[in-house]
């Protein structure tokens, strides 16, 4: 038993963590045991990427009628698998709930967490995970009925607002109303479906959650134009892909897969034209990205044609967005490329 010492150490660490969990608040202060082995090699030798996704969120991760995972987050799993194996189907999806997602990553049950998780300081430090890249910039907003005549959230003084309990959404709302001296009456409903129907039925004047969620709800209504998403964004919710802490190499692969998707959009490389561009595009950076010149893929520990495989499998960032999020009514907004005014998605150079 060469690893017995390690096992014992881990078991003791876990026992300490277990004890800490009994005291709420202390649970997060205990750093998780660091991963001993390299995830990248583990994934390689397993021949499959294990990807933690949401149990079901429209546009981000949901199984279709045939049980195949579709959505923005699932496409990131596919892209990473294509980068490592050249085959987007070598993914095992593990549906994770909000409560178990971080443990699943810490315990090695999943390799990567692609599950609309907000990147925060405390999660980045004490929870034992690293965020590789922000794939989607979200933020909390308000939706009102157009007939209400409200044009700004500041006009919501005295309004009733529908909100889900126990989430950061509720805290953000309280913080914001205090800072802006807007008094409101909260209508707190646990289930999203009931919350939306309460808003539609007129039990509250406004409905607040992340903008992506508001847009999805709005587009599902019979007449979307009857509802207005107010311009104020009251919180920052950068949704990022997480990996285990202390696993820099694997984090690099995940991070640069995201940058590849951005750069591909920037240079106009699409699923349809990638083969042709790899063969005869004259631009030096495109040649470097697609592996015609240089050895960027090898530096990441991947095949030199990794970029071609990824784009062939899922397309570029814009295509992933258009395929999954545009149909449910989510605008590019801050998720446009940096070349567009207001866009935040920016990739470091490939060289």
């Amino acid at each position, binding site marked *: 038993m060469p690893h017995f010492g390690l096992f014992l150490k881990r*078991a003791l660490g*876990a026992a300490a963590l277990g004890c800490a*969990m009994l005291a709420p608040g202390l649970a997060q202060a205990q750093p998780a045991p660091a991963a001993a082995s390299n995830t990248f090699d583990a994934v390689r030798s397993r021949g499959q990427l294990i990807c933690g996704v949401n149990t079901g969120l429209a546009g981000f991760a949901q199984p279709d009628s*045939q049980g*195949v995972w579709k959505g923005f987050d699932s496409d990131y799993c596919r892209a990473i698998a294509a980068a490592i194996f050249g085959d987007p189907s070598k993914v095992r999806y*593990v549906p994770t709930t909000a409560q*178990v997602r971080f443990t699943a990553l810490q315990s090695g*049950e999943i390799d990567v967490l692609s599950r609309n998780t907000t990147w925060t300081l405390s999660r980045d430090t004490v929870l034992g995970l690293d965020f590789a890249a922000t794939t989607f910039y979200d933020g909390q907003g308000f939706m009102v009925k157009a007939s209400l005549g409200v044009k700004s959230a500041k006009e919501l003084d005295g309004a009733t607002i529908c909100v889900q309990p126990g989430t950061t959404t509720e805290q953000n709302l309280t913080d914001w109303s205090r800072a802006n001296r807007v008094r409101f009456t909260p209508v707190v409903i646990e289930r999203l479906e009931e919350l939306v129907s309460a808003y539609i039925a007129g039990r509250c004047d406004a409905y607040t959650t992340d903008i992506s969620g508001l847009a999805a709800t709005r587009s599902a209504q019979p007449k979307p134009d009857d509802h207005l998403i107010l311009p104020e964004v009251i919180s920052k919710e950068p949704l990022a892909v997480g990996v285990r802490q202390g696993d820099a190499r694997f984090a690099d692969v995940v991070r640069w897969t995201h940058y590849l998707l951005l750069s591909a959009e920037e240079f106009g490389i699409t699923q349809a034209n990638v083969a042709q561009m790899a063969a005869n595009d004259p631009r030096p950076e495109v040649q470097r990205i697609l592996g015609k010149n240089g050895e960027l893929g090898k530096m990441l520990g991947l095949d030199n044609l990794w970029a071609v495989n990824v784009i062939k499998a899922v397309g570029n960032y814009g295509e992933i967005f258009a395929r999954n999020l545009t*149909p449910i009514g989510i605008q590019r907004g801050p998720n446009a490329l940096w070349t567009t005014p207001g866009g935040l998605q920016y990739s470091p150079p490939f060289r």
Partner: protein
Amino acid sequence: MSDVTLNAAATVPEAAPRSAPLTEVGLVGWARANLFSGWISTAVTLVLAYFIIRWAIGFVDWAFVNAVWSVPNNQTQACRDARGVGACWAVITEKHRFILFGTYPYEEHWRPALCVLLFVALYVVSAMRRFWRPSLALVWVGVLTLIGLLMWGGVLGMPYVPQERWGGLVITLILATFGLAFAFPLAIVVALGRRSNLPAIKAICVIYVELIRGVPLISLLFMASVMFPLFLPEGMNVDKLLRAQIAIILFAGAYLAEVVRGGLQALPKGQYEAADALGLSYWHKTGFIILPQALRLVIPPLVNTFIGFFKDTSLVLIIGIFDLLTAGKTAIIEPAWQGFGVEVYLTVGAIYFVFCFAMSKYSQSLEAELNRHRVR
């Protein structure tokens, strides 16, 4: 109805050979006695009948007449137009395979389908008394192994399917069947242990039962899915479903143990003493005298617990396992199908009802049959 005839015969003895007037027996007699016995009763009956008929007509209109049964290629406009007047059964037509089998590979759906049939066949065979012999245990072991083989595959040309992809009705049946099959023997052992004279065994059983009953099932499931993996060495993972299954077995075991203990305590002390007087050993006494009587006494609470646990399996949704209910909820997340929850919940509810009602009916007949000697 037999009561009515008996009473009539008792009050008018000389009329006994003749049958009672038609207005006193049968449907008419029952309706007169129960629905129209006075003017208040008549009024209430008529008002309620009016509401029931109106509701029934409305329901039939919604569920059948105006319903949309299928739509082409996820184009749900027809369904959205029928909102409020007709049901959108198209969501079931489109999603039924997902609701029943979850994310199991589509072209391999015959395997979980066969497993569901095997489960039902196993229940039916086990329910018939003429099959109650020791070889039934072997049948259970065989069928459950076969179900495991079918689900996992990897042999006989069936591709391997990892557990994360299992889902739907088959997960509910697996959790419930394996859960109760293991929890029931565990419960008997614990119940006997709790009444044991050996202090150590008694203490262990009491601690087990009280600890498990002291926490909700959800927290046990969380322990199984969140804390337990942290105790394992790097790279070693116990299947998520197995962890949930063990949590359910432990939980069900504690509750069933208390039910069984109720039966043990209800037996008159004379039964124990008589068995001792015959010189039977502890195991003979328990196996031949005590348990058969005790278990017969507790059939209603046992089935009550069984039905409860069958439905409690839906709690595994919090750890990301797609059981029947979760699969139903997930089916309506896809944007095109959002808002058709009622149809999906009705369908899932109907499936749960079939299983629970069958259990309940079967237990009633079993109770009547086993307690025939008490009825005089």
